Each structure stands twice: as C-alpha cells, then as structure tokens.
C-alpha cells in the first residue's frame, strides 16, 4: 500500500515539476523545478530497493543542476522573464508528443511481448554497491572504460580551452603592461 501511495505521489510530483520546467518562461522557476524533478525521480529508485542508485541520482543531479544555475546567473537576470521566440506551435506540440510516444513504445514493447530475461541474476547476500560494482566490471566493462576515456578527453579539452594565457594575471599587472599585452593581441 505504502509503495503504491509513494509511487503515485512521486509520479505526480515528477511530472508536475518537469511540466513547469518546460512551460515556464522564468529561468529561475525552470531551473528549480528541474532540480526538484530530478530529486523526486530518486524516489523511484528507493521504492525499487536500489538505494545506491537513488542517492547517486540525488548527488549527481544536484551538482549538475547547480552548474546550470551558475550558467543561468552569468547569462540572464534570473528574476525577470525570458522573452521566448515561439515558432510554429503545432509543429512543436506534434513533434514532442510523437517523441514521447515513441520512447514509451520503445521501452514498453519488450515488456509487453515478455521478451525480457535477466541474464545476470542477482547475487544472493550481496549489497547494492557490490552488485553495481560486479555488473560494471563484467557486463559493462567496455562501456565503462570508454566512458572513462571520454571523460579524460573532455577534461584535457577543457583544460586546453580554459588554460590559455593562464600564466599572466591581469590583477598583478600595471595598466601599461596590460596595454602592451593588448597591443600584442594576446588579450582579445
């Protein structure tokens, strides 16, 4: 009974939050609703007994959405409404409905045809974390390693992009030195 109540409560809350995220024109509302929705999703993991994934969902998405807030702060006045450019409303609604239906069908079809078999049965008396570890280092070893390499590449690229001219400090330079640097077109 509790599980059903919790499921419907959080299902309603999650959908409501994401609806706000999509429809509002206020950046702060959108970001807050997004964060709330992401945190409410973790409730489903808890209901299913996947505590570890639930907590990871909370930690990862609070951090990720927090970074979005930081961008929001840099680019908008978040207390004002954003003027949105609205295209053809029918195309937008039609396309998004179609996508949503397609995604549901893709995931529901194997369930309806009962074509799902658990290839890797749950190991008895192993905790959540151990199970995640085992599955990561057996079945999903290659995606796991590829993800690691991708993150490394992204990190190197990030350092290269952000690290240009990091050896000079505008705070420590006198104004003449800054002018000289500008003339050298080092600072664009």
């Amino acid at each position: 009974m509790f599980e059903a109540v919790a499921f419907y409560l959080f299902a309603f809350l999650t959908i409501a939050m994401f609806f706000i995220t999509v429809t509002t024109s206020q950046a702060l509302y959108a970001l807050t609703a997004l964060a709330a929705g992401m945190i409410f999703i973790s409730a489903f993991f808890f209901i299913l007994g996947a505590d570890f994934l639930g907590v990871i969902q909370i930690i990862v998405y609070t951090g990720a959405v927090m970074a979005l807030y930081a961008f929001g702060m840099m680019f908008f006045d978040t207390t004002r409404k954003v003027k949105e450019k609205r295209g053809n409303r029918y195309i937008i609604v039609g396309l998004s409905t179609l996508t949503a239906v397609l995604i549901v069908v893709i995931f529901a079809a194997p369930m309806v045809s009962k074509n799902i078999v658990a290839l890797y049965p749950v190991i008895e008396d192993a905790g959540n974390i151990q199970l995640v570890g085992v599955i990561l280092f057996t079945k999903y070893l290659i995606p796991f390693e590829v993800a690691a390499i991708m993150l490394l590449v992204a990190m190197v690229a990030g350092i290269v992009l952000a690290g240009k001219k990091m050896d000079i400090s505008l705070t420590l330079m006198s104004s003449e030195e800054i002018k000289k640097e500008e003339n050298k077109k080092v600072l664009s």
Partner: protein
Amino acid sequence: MDSAYLIETIIKVVVILLIFSALAGIGTYFERKILAFMQRRLGPMNVGPYGLLQVAADGIKLFTKEDIIPTNVVTPIFKIAPVITAATAFMAAAAIPFLPPFEVFGYEVHPIVADVNIGILYVLGMMAVGFYGPLLGGMASANKFSLLSAARTAAVFISYEVVTGLSLLAPIMMVGSLSLIDFNEYQAGGIGDWIVWSQPVAFILFWISAFAETGRTPFHLIANDHEIIDGFGTEYSGMRWGLFFIGEYANMFFISFVIPLIFLGGYGDGSLFGALGLLGKMSFFFFFFLWTRAAWPDVRPDQLMWLCWKILMPIAVINVVITGFVMMF
C-alpha cells in the same frame, strides 16, 4: 510494514526534530558565549541567569517579526529557499545513528530513523541539496550582493563536493560498506581500531570540507560577512531568516556526529561509556567549529578555489591510490 514499526519511526522522527531544533537554538547561545569568552567579553548576560533565556528571547523575536517579502523578488522561490535549508538538514539526520541501540521497558530501540545501507552517501547527498537554500535565496532576492553570495555558494558547493567524496572514498574502501553502523562495527574494538590512525589524511581532508559543507568560518564567505551584510539572507526577515539559521546549526550538529562515526570509533561497543563518548566527541567537533570562528579569518574566494583544486583534491586522489595499493598487496 507493521504498525509498531510505523509508530516507532514517527516517534523517532518527532524526537529528533524536537531535540535538534532546540539544540540549534541552544547552539547559538553556545556560539555567542564561546566567542565572547575567546574575545574577553561576557556575551549574553541580561536575559535569565548567565543569559540562558536569550535563546527564548531570540525565538520570540524571530517568530513574531513581520515576514517581509520585498517588491522585486521571485516570490515562490524566495519563500521556499529557507525551508529547503532547514528541511534537508533534518532529512540528513535520518541515516545517522545517534546512540547505540538500547532497551526501554523491554523494547529494543535503535536510535536511527532509517538504517539504509548507503547511510553516509545519503547524509552527504542531503547536505549537498541543502546548498540550494542559500543559492535560491540569493538568486531570488533581486539584490546584487545576494546574487554574489549565491554565486559563491555554487562555487563552494561544486568544488568541495569533490573533496568530501574523494576523502571519504579511502575509509569506504577499507570498511567495504556505506552504512554508518557498519563503520561503527568496524571500529568497535577500541581506540586502536579507529580509522583515523590508518587514514589520518582522509580525516583532515574530510574535516576541512566539513567546514565548507556547513559554510562555517574559514569558508563563511557564502554569507559575505566582510561586506557587512548577510549574503543570501540580506533580504530575509523574521522566521524565514531563522530557518536558514536552524538549518546551518542542525547541519553543524549532524556533521559533528558524522565525523566521529566515520573516523573516531563512533559509539564503540555500544555500552553507556561508548554512547557518552560519542556525545563527547560530537561536542568537541561542535566546539571546534566555534573555536575556528573565533580564531581564523575568512579565506578569499580565490584562495578557496586554490585550496580545493590545487591542494586538497590532489592529496585526496593520492590518498585513494595509496590506500588501494596497500589494500591490494
């Protein structure tokens, strides 16, 4: 799910809420007194004996003050931000074992609301969500200083989450579990078994990032004290501002419970002595928060980032690697 369990859980939740909201109030009294003694003042003296009733006076003031919502703020977000801080602080308490299990009238009580097997991650995750309070409050306030404070909150949060996680990874590898009760069992053998002896580096790193996690003094710049305002709380008044305060103090108490549970043996073998020991260690860490506030200035934001990314994070990574090698061979 039988009704005895349900009633027990509800009672535990209510007790923890009451005790720690009261403690948050008394915590402000301790803070004022300790800061005062360290600065050779008397601190609160006028209300009640030794100023003890100052807490009640502050409470009455906060509850009865007008709740002002300034004109240009984003009202719903502005209103909900303090609630987030206070609520997440108390939610984090759900996975902390405050005392060893004890018996009341032949009924065994476990002083932990939910013994989930990922306790420590849950506590840290909830404390991380608590950062949304200052962030949203600052961003919704329509005040440039508040916005600045929100930006600093985001910076501190994004940086110090990394150090907290990495420093905890090494003890977690040793214990092989994320449950705080398992941590306690691992160290139940006495002082020699404490994780702090094998993981001193992780202990110091976690302690430092606890200050960032609670936004206490060396990292108090999320409140911009030096601009003679209250950062994200500038536009707040009455109980909404009070909720930020309760959240901050509750967080301090909870992290003061978590540090001894992870590194300093927790409640040990579960005897009365062990339980008192845990409370004693908790009091020391709480006192240390106040001590630091009296003794240290705030760091600059650039020093904060420098400390996190160039010093603490590499040390934490090296610590994890060394722990891994030692455990493997």
